[in-house]
């Protein structure tokens, strides 16, 4: 019961955000009145001091218009609290797209900011511990922002608490709210810079004709994908002004690579092995090679293509040794 009452209190709300580590929230978060906190900034305090000095001057010199100006500025300070609050309150924050990243990179957590009010919101700063992103949200529009978070290590990266704050319009007050949409990014191990192993190729038995992408016979054209090797781009078609296309080949795969955890030198540690395997997966994919991955307890058979690469990287990111 007490808890039910308390949850309507802004202070309690604030306390639970700051100290109790709120659980991540699913779905769209509505920034109601109780979630938006307002306090004066340092400049706001300076402003109050200036107004106080002006008041003293007006009293001392008996300036009636001085009183008018001083009190008008005092009113302006009060009204600016309302405007700052309104600039943030009743905003809808929804989860957006998250791209996978490699460890050491910056993950961008896409958030949608929707304003259903009919005034424009200006200068909203979003930060999740890293650098802040500033955006404006026009009236009755949705804006997409990407909040940068540094991905330190592989695995799932949960979006930490995001602070949305604004000092608009006068910078005298700061309104802020905490949100933590339930979003996570997959962080792959950071690749090292080793070359592909020369002897990793398993001799082809030559008995099976591999359908799909090979290196031998030209099979056709398909739209360019970011991971395609530049050597396979149909440059003649590009030179004619056409779309960027990639030449595909079928035939016997010249090689079939196996990236094996167990084959790596014993001296390498867990993360170093994962980094090396990540690097090989990326290089092999770039070469358009067929490759397979063997981790303790996990084996992904030889294949090629974007989906195959992603599933390999995913295993590497989430690998837990027994």
């Amino acid at each position, binding site marked *: 019961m007490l808890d039910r009452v308390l949850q309507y209190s802004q202070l309690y709300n604030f306390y639970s955000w700051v100290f109790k580590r709120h659980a991540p929230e699913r779905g769209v978060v509505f920034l109601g009145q109780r979630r938006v906190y307002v306090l004066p900034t340092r400049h706001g305090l300076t402003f109050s001091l200036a107004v106080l000095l002006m008041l003293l001057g007006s009293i001392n010199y008996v300036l*009636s218009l001085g009183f008018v*100006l001083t009190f008008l500025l005092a009113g302006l300070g009060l*009204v600016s609290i309302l405007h700052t609050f309104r600039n943030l309150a009743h905003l809808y924050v929804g989860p957006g797209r998250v791209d996978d990243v490699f460890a050491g990179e910056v993950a961008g957590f896409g958030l949608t900011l929707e304003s259903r009010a009919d005034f424009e919101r200006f200068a909203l700063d979003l930060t999740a511990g890293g650098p802040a992103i500033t955006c404006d949200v026009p009236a009755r529009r949705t804006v997409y922002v990407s909040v940068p978070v540094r991905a330190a290590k592989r695995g799932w990266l949960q979006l930490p608490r995001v602070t949305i704050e604004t000092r608009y319009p006068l910078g005298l007050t700061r309104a802020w709210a905490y949100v933590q949409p339930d979003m996570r990014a997959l962080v792959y191990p950071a690749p090292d810079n080793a070359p592909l192993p020369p002897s990793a190729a398993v001799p082809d038995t030559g008995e099976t004709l591999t359908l799909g992408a090979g290196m031998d016979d030209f099979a056709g054209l398909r739209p360019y994908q970011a991971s395609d090797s530049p050597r396979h781009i149909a440059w003649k078609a590009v030179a004619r002004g056409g779309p960027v296309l990639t030449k595909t080949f079928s035939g016997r795969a010249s090689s079939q690579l196996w990236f094996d955890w167990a084959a790596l030198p014993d001296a390498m540690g867990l993360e170093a092995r994962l980094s090396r395997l990540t690097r090989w997966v990326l290089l092999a994919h770039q070469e358009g090679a067929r490759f397979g991955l063997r981790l303790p307890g996990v084996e992904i058979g030889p294949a090629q293509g974007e989906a195959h690469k992603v599933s390999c990287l995913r295993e590497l990111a989430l690998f837990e040794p027994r």
Partner: protein
Amino acid sequence: MIAALRVPAKPGPLPLPLLLWLTAGLAMIAAPHALRLPAWVNGSVAVVLFWRVYLGWRQAELPRRWLLLTLALGQLIAVYFTFRTIFGRDAGVTLLVLLLALKLMETRAHRDVFVVIFLGYFVALTNFFYSQGIPTGLYTMATVVVITAALVGFNARARPMMDNLGTAGAMLIQAAPVMLLLFLLFPRVQGPLWGMPQDAFGGTTGLSDTMSPGSISQLSLSDAIAFRAKFHGLRPSNNQLYWRGPVLTSFDGRTWHAAEPRLRYEVQFQAQGRPIEYEITLEPHNRHWLYALDMPAGRPSAARITPEYQVLSLSPVRTRMRYEMISYPSYVVDSGATRDELREDLAIPAGFNPRAQRLAREWRRAAADDAEVVRLALQYFRSNGFLYSLEPPLLGRDSVDEFLFDTREGFCEHYSSSFVFLMRAAGVPARVVTGFQGGAINPVDEYLAVRDSDAHAWAEVWLGASRGWVRVDPTAAVAPARVERGIAAAVPQGSPLPLMIRENLAWLRSLRNSWEALANQWNQWVLGYNPDRQREMLSWLGMEHPSWQSMAMLLFWSIAGVILATGLWLVFRMRRESAVQRAWLRFCAKLGRAGIMRAAHEGPVDYAARASARLPTRAESIRAIAQLYVDLRYGPRADVERLLELRSLVRGFRA
């Protein structure tokens, strides 16, 4: 979806439009001071502002701090040598203006921009040291809007400046109710709280406590209002309007001086006839005296009356002051002044004006009593071709002799001075009274405006204990029109009178009357709102003896109410969209009851098409409602009129 504008949160240098805007706002604030500041200050402020804009335009580095500090120090020294002080009103304002410009050179960080703008507000306030009229007030408010817009622009970098101007204006308008409440209810203390600089009240004109030939005619060239009076009953005729000011008793041959104020008794006199009740709004003149009609009965609080019947305020009148007075135009002063006390009123300097003294002695011998001497003197002025003139010839050492026998052309100070001299030489106690005579009614608000040009000097003679001090106006003997119709009627055509009091130029006068009536209301209600007025207003509100606690409570709750109302209004705008939604849902419910349910996937246009097919007689209004809904919900702007239209259409809709 719209891709968000990605701006780095850490601000770089000020964008040029913002810089230009800020510089223009600060220049606007400093502009009224430019008329008063020394030329070198104006020059250096202009140079610094242009320099700053140039650096901003070239995106160049701002000067280093040591350079600015050196400049500031140099300016401080220059101010000291200009004003011989760095304190005081004028020197202080000069320093503030210089500092404002220099601080703009230093706008590197966030903090500096805020400091510049707050300093700008402060300099805007200092404009009121010099003028608190309506134009100054309006101008200052305009400058405040401009620099507030700069502050908004600084906090929303990507916005056009004109939008910021709109925001700043709207916010200041929303701040106005709070301002009004604070202005009316904030407990007022009569200033000053600490000593004021010596020069705080410089430059006020008006009567002085000395009079020499030419001093009052000089004042007559000024059109400034000395005070305003409002009569509560009948307005006395013009020749009764003798506004008593300093009484001058000692004469050194050229200049008359006021007596040292003595405070021995309350003034007693026999009042005859009906009193005149009136209220005076006195412009500040930095002197103690308060003007009142002869003969003042009673006195305002914080004032006293001298034996010369002059009302004096306890402290110099440095702000516009309002007081109620009662005067009796007919009176007999019967309190006894002994011959001994009148000795000062008989003194004449030895060795001056021998011819006048001879004339006075002749009158003395010829006359039966003092009243007869007075009559003879007035007769002399009337019958010897004296002229009333604003530009009398200059007089030498024996000024009275030269005026009486040679030039015979003078202004009121010549007449009163020589008359009193003659009386004293004849053994009749006499003194000069200065003040104002007459005044002009402003037909717009019925206030009598008394100007510097109405300044006058007359005489009083002591006609024995039974009649006491009697007013004699020798000027009236020469130019009766002066006291009946005012100065413009009395002086010859072509005299250098202030433009406005000339008798032609009626349209100009009526324009001025309206303007001055407005200015008077402004003075009465805005500038004159002082602790007394506040007490009056609170007692009108039913708070007879307000304690500061009750005033604080009243202030707190009323401001809280206003802020709450403003907040609700802002939030209402936040929810206007859902009002559109509510109206639409009500419409859907009405159609639903008629059996046309809206499917979850169905948009308003499709749904309206399906519904109008089912209800062909209602098709038109269904389509109208759906169209309005679509416009309101997805259109660029939702305005209130169209929302109300949607609501009334939905309300009137019958499926």
